[in-house]
C-alpha cells in the first residue's frame, strides 16, 4: 500500500488561524485575576486562593477521571503526600529546611511515583472496582500518616512549617499565594491542554471511549493509564506542597475521603474532561459553603440540596467536554468548520 502521507494535501484545519481570539480571551482570565485579586479584601482573596488550589487539583484529577475515564476516589492520597513532603522537609520535625522550589518538585515527584506504584497493580481492574481500590489506597495513606507517629507526628500533625521562599520571594500572605497559584494554574492548564491536544491525550481519550478498540489500534492501554496516573498524581502532589506552605500546618484530618469526593465533585459538576470545567466546579464548590455561612446550622443541608439540584439539572456537568477556544469560535462565528 502506498503511503497516504505522500499525498498529503494542505492540513484542512480551518479553525487554527482563528483560534487566537478565543485563546486570548481565556488568557484574560488569569491576567484579570492578577490585577483584581490583590485589591480584594483578604478573606475573599483567601477563598480565591482555595478556589485556585482546588481548580488545579481538579485539573490534575481530570487527567485520570476526565480523559482516561478511570474513577479515582483516593486522589487525596497524592495531595497528602505532597503536603507531608513540605511538612517533613521544611520544618523543625527533622530539622530539615529545604528550599520551596526543590520540595515542590520532590513532593510532586514522590506523589507521581506513588501514582505509578498504585497504578501497576490496580490498572487491570475496571470501573467501580478500580474506584474502590483507589479509595482504599487513599484511606491507607491517611491512616499511615495518622499512625507513623515517629515520622509524621501522627494525629498531632506537623506545626510551624517553614515559610516558603521562592527565589528570594517570601510566600506568606494570601496575595503572595495568589501569584503563585495563578502561575501554577497557567502552567498546569497549559500542561493539561498540551496533553489533551497531543498523542497522549488522543490515546487517553481512546482508552476512555473504548478500551478494547484502543488496544486494537495499537495502544498499550496499561502504559498509557500509568502515565495518566503519574501525571495526575504529580499535580496532586504539587498542590499538596502549596497547601502545606499556605497552612504551615498539616495533619491527617485535612486528607479524608471527603476531600477526595470534593475534588471529584469539582470536575463532575464543572464538566468532566474539560479544563474550564475544573475551574468552574472549583469556584462553585468552594464558594458555595462560604456563601452559605449565613445559614449557620442549615449550611450543609442546603449545600447537599444544591449539589443534588445542580447534578439533576446538568448531569453531564456545567461545561461540555468539547468547550474550548475552537468551540467558542465556532459558536460565535455560527459557521461550521
Amino acid at each position, binding site marked *: 500500500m502506498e503511503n497516504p502521507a505522500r499525498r498529503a494535501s494542505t492540513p484542512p484545519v480551518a479553525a487554527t488561524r482563528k483560534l487566537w481570539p478565543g485563546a486570548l480571551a481565556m488568557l484574560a482570565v488569569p491576567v484579570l485575576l492578577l490585577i483584581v485579586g490583590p485589591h480584594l479584601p483578604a478573606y475573599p482573596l483567601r477563598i480565591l486562593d482555595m478556589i485556585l488550589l482546588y481548580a488545579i487539583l481538579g485539573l490534575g484529577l481530570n487527567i485520570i*477521571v476526565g480523559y482516561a*475515564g478511570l*474513577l479515582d476516589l483516593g486522589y487525596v492520597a497524592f495531595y497528602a503526600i505532597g503536603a507531608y513532603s513540605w511538612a517533613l522537609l521544611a520544618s523543625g520535625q527533622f530539622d530539615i529546611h529545604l528550599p520551596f522550589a526543590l520540595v515542590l518538585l520532590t513532593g510532586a515527584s514522590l506523589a507521581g511515583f506513588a501514582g505509578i506504584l498504585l497504578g501497576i*497493580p*490496580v490498572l*487491570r*481492574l*475496571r*470501573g*467501580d*472496582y478500580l*474506584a*474502590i*481500590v483507589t479509595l*482504599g*489506597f487513599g*484511606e*491507607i495513606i491517611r*491512616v*499511615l500518616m*495518622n*499512625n507513623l507517629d515517629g515520622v509524621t507526628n501522627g494525629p498531632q500533625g506537623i506545626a510551624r512549617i517553614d515559610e516558603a521562599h521562592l527565589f528570594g520571594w517570601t510566600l506568606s500572605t494570601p496575595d503572595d499565594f495568589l501569584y503563585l497559584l495563578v502561575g501554577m494554574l497557567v502552567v498546569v492548564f497549559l500542561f493539561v491542554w498540551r496533553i489533551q491536544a497531543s498523542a497522549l491525550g488522543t490515546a487517553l481519550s481512546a*482508552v*476512555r*471511549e*473504548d*478500551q*478494547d478498540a484502543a488496544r486494537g489500534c495499537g495502544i498499550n492501554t496499561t502504559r498509557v493509564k500509568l502515565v495518566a496516573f503519574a501525571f495526575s498524581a504529580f499535580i496532586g502532589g504539587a498542590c499538596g506542597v502549596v497547601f502545606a506552605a499556605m497552612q504551615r500546618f498539616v495533619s491527617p484530618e485535612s486528607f479524608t*475521603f471527603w476531600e477526595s*469526593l470534593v475534588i*471529584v*465533585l469539582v470536575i*463532575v*459538576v464543572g464538566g*468532566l474532561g474539560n479544563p474550564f470545567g475544573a475551574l468552574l466546579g472549583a469556584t462553585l464548590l468552594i464558594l458555595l459553603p462560604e456563601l452559605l455561612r449565613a445559614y449557620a*446550622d*442549615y449550611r*450543609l*443541608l442546603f*449545600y*447537599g*440540596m*444544591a*449539589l*443534588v439540584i445542580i*447534578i*439533576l439539572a446538568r*448531569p*453531564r456537568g456545567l461545561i461540555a467536554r468539547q468547550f474550548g477556544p475552537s468551540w467558542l469560535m465556532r459558536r460565535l462565528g455560527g459557521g461550521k468548520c
Partner: protein
Amino acid sequence: MGALILQQTINALTVGSIYALIALGYTMVYGVLRLINFAHSELFTAGAFIGLALAGALGVAGHPTGGLLVGFITFVIIGLAGVSVEIVAYRPLRGTSRLAPMLSALGMAVVIQNAVMLIGGRRPLIYPSFLPSGVIDVFGAIITYKQITIFLVAVILMVALELFVNRTNLGVRIRAVAENAETASLVGINPNMAISLIFFIGPGLGAVAGILYSSFYGVATFTMGFVIGMKAFTAAILGGIGSIPGAVLGGFLLGFIETFATAWMPVLTGGLIGTEYRDIFAFSVLVLILLFRPAGLLGEHVSEETIVYKSDF
C-alpha cells in the same frame, strides 16, 4: 487462650451481623443500578433515630416485643424514604452517566445526615435497648443475650431475604431486572417496580440494623452512619458486589478481619504494629482480594472475552 478465641469469635459475629445487614442494602442497589448509594448509611442512621422516636411515642422503649413493632414500622418508614430518594435523586439521572447518580447520592447523604442532625440533635442519644439483657458464660467467654439476639435477628432477616429473592416470583423478577432491565421489561416486568422494591428493602434492612446497632451500643449519633457505612460497603465489595450471599459473607469476613486484627496484630508483631493499623489491614485485604478475584469473593467474574466494554464515564 481458647476462651479468648471464642470470645473474639463471638465479638466478630456480632459486628459482622451488623455489617452484613447494611452491606445487603449496598449490594442490592448496586446489583440493579450499578450505583454506590452513599445515602444508604445515612438512612441507617435515620432508622435508629426514627426507631427511638417511635419507641418514645409508643411507650415501648426497652421492651423486646415492643422492639419488634418498632422495627417493623421503622422498616416501612425508612423503606419508603429509600424509595423516595431513588425517585427524586437517582431516577431522573438514569442513563446519563455513571458518575452523576453516585454524586447525587453523595448530596443526598449530606442532606439526610444534616436533616437528622437538625431534627434529632447533635447530642448522642442514649438508646434504650430493645434487646434482652443477661449473659451466658461459655468456657470463660462471655456471651450476652444481646449478641445472640443481634446474630439471630440478622440471620433471620438474611435468610428471609434470600428466600424472598430465590423462592418467590417477585424475587425472581427482581433478579431478572438486576441481570438485564431491558430484557426484563420485554417479558412484562416493570423495572421501576423492581427498583423501587429494592430501594424499599435495602434501606429497610439498614434501618433495622440501625436499631440493633444503637440498641446494642446504647447510643445513637447523627454521624454514626458514615464510617460504618464505609465498612459495610467494603464488606459488600469483599463478598462481590451485587451478590446477596456475597454481602453476608463479606460482612462476617470483615467482622472477623477487624476483630482478629485488633486482638492479634499487636501480639503477632510484638507490638510493632498496633491496633491502630486495623483499618489498613482491612483495606489491604480488600485490595488483595480484588487483585486476585477482581469481582470479589462471590461476584460473577466477567471475563474480557464475553463483554464488550464501553467506557463507564
